[in-house]
């Protein structure tokens, strides 16, 4: 049976100046996932490792490259699903967690629930020893500039929804 890992770094109008960084990042993440499989890890271990690599790369909108909400805060979402058992874990609107995918896996492995959100997700993280990190460590200078620029737009986020510039 062939082992395969496929990753993406987000679908949007990626500008030319960021294209190489994005491609380099997804290549590294795919290799990270495959190395986990080669080491005897499961598909679940591989996708967690690959997504952690992408979350740790500030080029991507997740973890260390997160966008800011209208209040200038970071709110992160993640999910992980095991196709063997249909087990699933997810977190939403969690703040200041470097690797939300690993917190999602902890929800799957350590609770009887599927999703924890907001303050509850952060309290769960604290209870299992996942420490929060400062907002500044998750936000790049590029994102701060873009957030400043876009908050002065006449159109709001709802008007921009579904345009090529504004989506997850």
């Amino acid at each position, binding site marked *: 049976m062939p082992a395969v890992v496929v990753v993406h770094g987000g679908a949007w109008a990626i500008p030319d100046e960021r294209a190489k960084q994005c491609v380099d990042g997804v*290549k590294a993440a795919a290799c990270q996932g495959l190395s986990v499989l080669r080491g005897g890890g499961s598909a679940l271990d591989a996708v967690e490792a690959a997504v952690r690599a992408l979350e740790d790369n500030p080029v991507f909108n997740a973890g260390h490259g997160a966008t800011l909400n209208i209040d200038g805060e970071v709110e992160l979402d993640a999910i992980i699903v095991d196709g063997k058992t249909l087990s699933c874990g997810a977190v939403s609107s969690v703040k200041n967690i470097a690797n939300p995918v690993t917190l999602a896996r902890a929800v799957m492995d350590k609770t009887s629930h599927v999703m924890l959100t907001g303050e509850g997700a952060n309290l769960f993280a604290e209870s299992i020893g996942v420490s929060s990190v400062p907002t500044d460590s998750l936000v790049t200078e590029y994102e701060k500039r873009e957030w400043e620029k876009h908050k002065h737009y006449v159109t709001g986020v709802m008007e921009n929804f579904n345009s090529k510039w504004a989506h997850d």
Partner: protein
Amino acid sequence: TVGAVAVDCAGNVACATSTGGIRNKMVGRVGDSPVIGCGGYADNFSGAVSCTGHGESILKVTLARLVLLHIEQGKSVAKASQLSLQHMGDRVQGAGGVVVVSPSGQWAATFTTERMAWAAAEHDVLWFGINPNE
């Protein structure tokens, strides 16, 4: 948004998706990424999917589960991805992308946005791309 799908040597599949959401989003807004069947789904019966794109559109068509439904009906992973993204465009005018893998190791990276960075690693081969039809 970032995501990954994988199949291991035992034929088990899995998916994961993670995101910072959309810039300037309302406080408390949650998109598709953490919602099961929308931002991702995995089932050894059909495959694993991770989605990216316009979150509200992906939610409305339950995109990840829709891709797997097409696979269950006999479509290839590539065709299932294309049909599902086309459906999302037709019904709710949303654009996005998916990565998919089947339990037998078939895979696809498909998108309807201008670009999506993707990579696939299998055996000693690394496939990658960012522009349509690469």
